[in-house]
Every structure is written in C-alpha cells, then in structure tokens.
C-alpha cells in the first residue's frame, strides 16, 4: 500500500467518522485524531521522507489537499453542530408569545380632556387662543350683558343654580354657559380685534339623567374685528367640522335663536354613524347638532366695549361631552364625572 493509498484511506475514514459526529466534544476529538500534531495525517506525513525525491512534491501537494478538504469538512460539520446546539438552546429558552406582557403602569387622560384638546388645537390653527374666565358669575354677566334680561322668555333655555347671597346683593350664579367669558374677553381686548376660544365647566339646574348632567364642559369661540361676516362664521365652522369629522363632511346651517347672537345658527353635520340615512343616535334625522352660533348681537358687542356700527363678530359654542359621547358611542353621560376607573381606563 502506498502512502498515497494510505492517505486516501485515512481521508475516507475521517470523512465517514465526521458525518457520524454530532457533539462539540466528539468533533474536537476527531480533529485531534486526524488533523492534530499527533493525528493520523501528521503521523503519515512523517513517512514522506521515504518516498523517492521526484514523487515527494506531488505527494506533498496531495497531503495539503487532503488537509484542506478535511479542514473544510470539519468547519462545515462544526457549524452544523453548533447551530444545532444553539437551536436546542433557543428551544429551551422559548416562551409562549401569547402570554401577557409586562404592562407599564400608565394612566389615561379623561375623555373630555382629550376632546377639549382636539377642539382647542383645531381652533388654535385658525388663530384662536384659549381664554379662561370664572365659573361663578353674576347674573348680569351670565345673562344681562348677553341680552337676556330678567323676565325674558329666553331665560327658560337655561335652568340656573344660584348661589346664596346677602339680601339685596347682586345675584350670583354658576355660569350656565361659557358665554360670560365673551364679555370678559371682549372687554380685555376692545378696541383691538379679538379671537379666543373659551373652554370650561358650566352648570345647569337639571335632574341628572343618561343624557343630561348638572355639570358639563362647553367650548365657546368668538372673533371680533372690523371685517368679520356670517360667511366667515360658516367658513370657520365648516373648517372645524372637516378637521373633526373628515374632509368633505356634509354640513347644514339652520336658523336658530340665541339672545346674544343675531343672526343665529345651528350647525348640523351629517350623522357619521348612519351616513345620513337616519338612525337612533341622530333621531332618524340623518343630522347631528354640533354647534350653536351666530353673529354677536349689537347689544352684546356694545356691552363688550365695541361700537357695533364699526365692529362685527361671531360666536359659537359646543359641548365636548356630547362630541365625546358620539365619538366613542357612550350612552350614559353620568360616567363622565364618576371618577370610575372602569370608565376612565377605556380611553387613550
């Protein structure tokens, strides 16, 4: 048997043995058995010197080729084995990904806060800044200066909580709407133009039911200047409706009545629940009331410090709770002020 034949036998035996190996310990042993300094190939190579000189270079090349082949086979087998080992380790480390995660404890904002922010953000983009005014007001500010004198039938529109005051003192009440803020804001700005949004809590003397609360939020906006028209009011409210309910939202402007605006208007948007076909929520009308608005009444402008022959302006108001209820399908307004976390946790 020649050295070359022996080498071929060793190569064949090594490759056969390698294919059967599947642990990192055994492959290490294999490596030292065949490729180590005392391995089979090293031992055989020592016999190269016995070959005739002219055969040595070819035999040397053959040895190198076999070594390289076995090195490569080793690397490949080792990669397979370690990959299998890692795979097994991963298997042992695997989790049931459907098990619940570790939830960070994060609280939620009140849904009314969210909607108030949406509304004020939309109007901020149109140049309206937030203006806040007191919740406890005088009868004069809540009604009188807004062109709602005592004994006016329009007073029926606002059931009022009055605050106990000394006999003969001016009547004090919980504001029934954010509109007294109009007067505050106008007086603070006149004779300069004003464009503000007035969010806040309001109160009505009303039995609490699923649809009515004694306390609620309102957002009111006013714009007063020398060139403000009813058409501007329409454009502003349509802009708002398209921001809140999507571009192309259908709107309807209906004449209405508020003592502090003339002309007065009610803005309806197409019911987004039934797309105008009529459903329980829109009382089959296909429309949802969104905002009461109008051109500020000349008397109110004058009370705010503006000359109504020179200045004009519009005002609008809306109820964030109503918008919130429609947005989220809430059927009972009483949850809003319950502080019940089963309710609060449902929002984002």
């Amino acid at each position: 048997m020649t050295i070359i034949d022996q080498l071929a036998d060793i190569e064949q035996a090594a490759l056969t043995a390698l294919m059967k190996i599947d642990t990192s310990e055994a492959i290490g042993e294999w490596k030292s058995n065949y490729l180590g300094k005392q391995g089979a190939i090293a031992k055989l190579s020592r016999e190269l010197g016995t070959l005739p000189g002219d055969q040595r270079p070819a035999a040397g090349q053959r040895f190198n080729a076999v070594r390289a082949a076995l090195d490569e086979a080793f690397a490949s087998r080792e990669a397979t084995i370690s990959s299998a080992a890692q795979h097994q380790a991963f298997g042992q480390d695997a989790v049931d990904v459907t098990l619940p995660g570790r939830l960070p404890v994060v609280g939620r904002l009140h849904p009314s806060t969210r909607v108030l922010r949406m509304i004020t953000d939309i109007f901020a983009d149109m140049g309206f800044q937030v203006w806040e005014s007191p919740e406890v007001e005088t009868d004069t500010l809540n009604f009188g200066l807004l062109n709602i004198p005592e004994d006016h039938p329009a007073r029926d529109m606002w059931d009022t909580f009055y605050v106990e005051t000394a006999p003969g003192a001016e009547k004090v009440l919980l504001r029934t709407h954010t509109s007294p803020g109009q007067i505050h804001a106008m007086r603070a700005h006149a004779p300069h133009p004003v464009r503000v949004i007035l969010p806040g809590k309001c109160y009505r003397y009303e039995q609490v039911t699923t649809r009515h609360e004694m306390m609620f939020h309102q957002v009111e906006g006013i714009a007063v200047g020398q060139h403000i028209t009813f058409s501007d009011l329409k454009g502003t409210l349509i802009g708002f409706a398209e921001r809140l309910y999507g571009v192309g939202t259908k709107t309807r402007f209906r004449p209405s009545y508020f003592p502090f605006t003339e002309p007065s208007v009610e803005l309806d948007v197409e019911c987004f629940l039934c797309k105008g076909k009529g459903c329980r929520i829109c009382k089959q009308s296909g429309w949802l009331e969104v905002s009461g608005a109008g051109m500020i009444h000349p008397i109110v402008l004058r009370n705010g410090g503006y000359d109504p022959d020179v200045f004009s302006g519009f005002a609008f108001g809306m109820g964030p709770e109503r918008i919130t209820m429609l947005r989220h399908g809430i059927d009972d307004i009483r949850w809003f002020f319950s502080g019940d976390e089963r309710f609060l946790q449902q929002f984002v």
Partner: protein
Amino acid sequence: MRIPLSWLREYVDVTIPIDELAERLTRSGLEVETIEHIGGAQAELPWDPTLVLVCNILEVSQHPNADRLVLATVEYTLGSNHTVVTGAPNLYQYKGLGRLTHPLKSVFAREGAVLYDGHVAEKVKVTLKGKPVRGVMSDAMLCSEKELGLSEEHEGILILPDDAPVGMSLLEYIGDTVVDIDVLPNMARTLSLVGMAREIAALTGQSFRLPNPTVASSGANANDTIKVSIAAPELCPRFTASVVRNVTIKPSPFWMQRRLIMAGMRPINNIVDISNYVMLELGTPNHTFDADCVAEAHIVVRNANVDEQIKTLDGRTHMLNPSHLLVCDTTQPLSVAGVMGGESSEVSDRTKNVLVEAAVWEPTIIRRMSTAFKLRSEASKRFERGVDPEMLELAQRRLCQLLHDYADGVVAPGLVDVRSAPIRQISITLTSAEVKRILGLDFTATKLCDLLTPLGFGCTVNTSDSLAVIVPSYRRDVSHTADLCEEVARMFGYDNLPSTIMADELPAQRTNLALEHEHFVRDVLSGAGLNEAITYSLTSLASAANLDPAEAEATNYLRLANPLSSEREYMRRAILPTLLESAAGNLRERGSTRLFEIGRVYHRRADAILPAEPLRVAIVMAGQRTNASWHDASPEAIDFFDIKGVVELLCERLQISTIRIAPSDADSLQPGRAAQLIARTAIGEVVIGHFGELHPLARERFAMPAVRVAVAEFALDTLLELANVPRYTSISRYPASSQDLALVAPVMVSAETIAASIRKYAGAALNSIELFDVYTGANLGAGMRSLAYRLTFRSNERTLGDDEITKLRAKIIRGVEHETGAKLRS
C-alpha cells in the same frame, strides 16, 4: 307647536311633499321634530281605504244568545245591509227600537282590515277575520277610537257626526298628518296656524289666506251694556270685549274636537274649545267670562291690592300684591291677567251670557306672574313671547262667529275696544352695505325687498342700495338691522350664503404659559400611571368633613340657593373629598385606585361677591402598586413613598428647584406619614400643599378598606409659577468612579440632612448620590439607623485619580461626621 296639515291648508296651499316641507321648515328655523301620520300609508296604523269606511247604523237588536252583545244592521255603501256583532255599551239604548229614525254614523271595518286590539293595553295589531260569535256570523266590526289608533278610548264605538258621508273611507274623511315643530322664543309669530301658514307661504312662494269671518248680530250693542276701564295702561296696551247671549253649553262639533286633539289639546265643551280653537288658529289667547258674574258689567284692569287673593280655575288660591295685574269687576278679581281665569266668573253649565276678552299684555308682567304662580299655560306662553295687537278684532269676530254657530249664541253688535297705549310701529333703514358687512354678500335693495316682502315686511326701495322697512305688528322680535339681516339670510337660505376664511386682521398672539403647564402636568401625571378624573365641583359639608371634620364650617363655603340635592349643595373648597369618594368606589370594584384631578376650588372672599377660583391638583393612590399578573402575582401595596415619588417626578419634570419637603401635621393625614411641599418665594416660604397617607379615621369615614391610601393636594397655580425651562449640563467624556458610604446616625437625623451634608463636602466632583440601603437593627444600637449611599464622582476635565478619590472620601466622612454626628458604619 303641532300643526295638522288639513287645518293648515285652510290658510295656505301645501304643494310640496310633506318631507320636503319639513326640510324647508327646519332649514328656515322651524325645526320639525316629528311628522305624525294619522290613517295614511305611513301611519303607525294605516286605515285600508277599501276596508275601513264611514257607515250608517240602521237598527240595533239584542244578540239571541248573549245578554251583553247586540246586533247592528249597518249600511256602508248605499243600500247595503250588513249585520255586525258588537258589545259597544253606547248602542244598548237603541236596542229594540226597530229602524232608527235618526241613524247613527260610525266606522265600519270589513274582514281583512288591520286594527289595534281594543282589549289589550298595548298597541297590538290584529287582522279582522270572520268567525261566529255565540252562533251569529261576524266578519266585520264597528270600531272604537282605540281600535283605530285615535285615542285610548274603548268604552264604546266611535260615533261620527251626522254629515259624515256614508261609504267614504275613513282615511279620506279624517286621515291627516300632524307636523310637530319646535318653536324658538323669537318665533312667537308661528305659535298659531295662520302664523305658521304665513311663514310657509313666504317660504314656498304660495299665497296666504287670512280668514275673514262674518257675524250675524242682534240686540243691544256691547258698548252699551259693558264698560272697560284700564287702570294700568302700560301693562295692557289694548283690551277688547264682546258679548254673546243665550249660549248653550254642549260638546263642540266633531271636526273642532278632532283639530284640537291633533293640535294636542283636550276638548272640554264648546265654550272652552272655541276659545282654544281661536288661540291656536290666530295666536290670540282669549278668555270667556260668565257675563252675569261680572258685577255692574264693568271690567277693570288694574294692579292687585295688598293682600288681595284670587282662586284660579285650577282650584288654587294665590296671594297677590301690587306687582300683579288683574282683570276685575267693580268688586273682585276675575282673572290673573293673561295667565288664568278665576273661579268666580267661570263659565259653567248654568251660564247663559258670556263676555269674551281678547287683549294684549306687556310680556314681562305675564312672565313674572306665570313664574310666580307656577301657572304656565298655552296663553301665558304666547303672551310672554308677544301677541299681535292688531289681530284682536279678527279674533273677536272669529270667537263670536263660532259661539253663534256652535253654542247657539246671540252675538251683541259692537266691540268694546280700548287702546290704552299706542302700538309702536318700527321702521328700519336697511342698506346693502350693512347686509354685506354682516352677512358677507352683496344684495341690491330690490333683492332685499323681494326677500323681505313675503314675510309681511313693508319695504320701500329708496335707492339702489337702501330701503325702508316697516316691521309688521306680529314681528315683535325685529328691532335692529341685525334682525333684518337674519331674515334676509333665512329667506336666501343659510346654506346658500358663501363660506369664507376670515380675512380680518389676526389679533396679537400671546403666550398662555399657565395653560400649557396645566396640560403638561396632566401628561406627567397620566404618564406616572394615574388616571385623570373629573369630579363634581358641588359637594356636601358631610363629604368635606369626611376628610377633615374641621373643614365642615358652612360659613367658609359658597352655598347654592337652589341645590338639586343635599349631596350637591356647596361649592367645593378642596378636590380630595370628591376624588376620595370616587377612589373608594374604585377600591371596592377593582382593589386599587390611582387617580388625579386638576380643577378649580371656590373660596369665599370677604371683599367680593364672587369667590376666588384657585386651580388645584389632587392625587389618590391605593392598593397594589402594579396590576397582579403571572409576572408578579401579589405586587406590593402602595404607600407614602409612591406618592412622594410622584411628587418628586412632578417637581423634577417642572424643573422646580425652589422647593423643599418637610413633615406635616395635617389632621387628615396619618401622623408620621405626612409631608408638606414648601416653596421658597420672594415673599418667604409658602406651603403649596400636603401629601402622605390618609389618616385611618378619614379612611374609615370614606368607607375605604384598610389599605394605605396615599393622597396629595397642591395649589397648582402657585406650583406652576415655580416652573423652569431645563438647563443643559455638559456630559463628561471621562470615566466615573464610585464609592459606597454607609453612615450610622440617630433616626431623628433626617436622610435629607445627611445627603445635604454629603453634597456639601463632596463639592463639584460629585456626579450623583443614590441612597441604596436603609437599615435599622439591634446591632446598631437603639434609635440608630444606617444609610448607605453610592457616590459617583466624575470630572468634565480629566480622569479622577484613585488617590484623589480616597482623599475626597475622607474629607466627606470627616465633614459629615462633624456636621451631623453620623459615624461611618464599621
């Protein structure tokens, strides 16, 4: 306002489908709330026009086999003879009379007709089927009002008037549509059929027909028999009276009753019904007195005397004073003017002669009286919104005509008509420029005239861009050019006006830091795991006392004069009581709670009638620190340090440094687990609020389970004033070196004292200080505590050497030991 279409058509032609009309009305400010169909295809109970018919009952005889049933012979087309079995009690009296000399008109339903079951309370539809009833075949029915869906009445069959045409379908005879319209306070002119018709005529381009009744009169002139004196002319601008003699009190005619019912009023008798009918038709409330009860036939309109009384038709007695207005005779009050009649002159079955009043009153006096006496009536509703003073004469003619026709009255010629104050006519100049300024659209004077004239405004075009507008007497709501602009916009169509983006100068913009910070605090607190609540601003003293009995001092609170309930009677002075009530509910329902609220509280001020409304933030946390899960089945319970962590986070996020935390002796908090937040300000130290664990007694008063409840309430507006913008500090490129230091000191030496001392002696090289262990144990000695700190040193300029750190450590230990008495733990 309920408008039966058949009635409306007397005054205006309705040429468009009802749904289209409803939309037009809604879009012009008369919001249609419901459309009710009676009998028609869209009705809840449609009357089949071939099966439900007007019939004649020719004969009534006893059922051969049943005492309580009768057999009616019915003619429903000319010459037909159909036997119907019925138990209607109102037919018993005709039994055995043979052919009725005066046949009865009723409603006949044939087999296949769908009707309501008269025998059950609910509205259940049944289809009429032929079947023998006690041996007699019955395949048709005589109907009660209930079976036809007209009312709940099922005592007997519906008897129609004699002129009802036999064989006509009931649908054709009395089928109708009623439109219910929400009339706003400025739309008083439409609180009548003619008013609504006038509006509809203008909106649809149809002509309007005002009725013009003629009255046959005889006998003495009313002006010679009665006298009217107005002692309060400013409160009663016009008063008219007429006299009708020899009236017969009886039910009003069927058609009138139908109209009243459809309009939402209950028929009473002919006199009352005629009065209501004319009010609904013309919008003129009126009153009928028993003329023989009017002393000296002299009506006096005057203010009440002190301590005068009147008993009104509803049986109540009202105490009067001179601010009240009465219609009296020479001896006593007869009615509360425009609000309700008195019993003494009430029309009764014995009444022979009536005096009919139609007047207008100053709206505010009516409102004041109807409010004071809680007498809101259809009349007062109209008077307080304003009644057309020029409609009175027509109303009197209509009243007299109906009393003549349906109460057999003899109408006295003449109308007593006292105009005590001139009716002011309003004239307004309207220009195209003004309309453009308010509405944003150009209209010529001619166009404006075309829009306003159909509504009854008297328009005279002066120039191409100016017109004079005379306001009709029924438009008391119009007094400014703005009112006319609304009418122009309404007639033009709100939806037809342009929509524009404001081109006016943008007002000066300013910062609103307080609001931005308030939003930020909401975000910080919700990020810290707290849910935002909004609780009622209204509360009770009992609730305030639950937190701290000393807080239940009524004189400190704003109290409602008209609370809805004792639970919501006072304006809150603090947020925590209402927030704790919510928290208690959450603890019961979920075993934990983490809430915050930002809102105002209301503090009475000695020098002002309005309270201060400072902004507060309140926090409540209790129960498990995190939700129990498979990761951690029983998380630890929240305690003092959870709320303190939130407070520290809040101050850090707001970059507040001018603040310190110190022990608190607040009564609502558990002693030893109570702290206060103190701000250093230009005017000295200010307490911003307290936090800690709720006192167990308070916790029990709120009915909370025995867990630690961590609470806080701060003056948010004060806190926000201390906020700062973060300053960047440069980040070192050099490595850090850390040292652990355990110091033993008496427990009464606060952790903050020791930490402050470390910081002082460590100087600028100290990068961070972290307390990582607190230990008390017998081996330290009684009353002693070990605090272990990890100090990290780092320089921005160089790497700190080991010997440098060693020296610094020794310096810190010496300094702290000297300053605080602490000793390095051995």
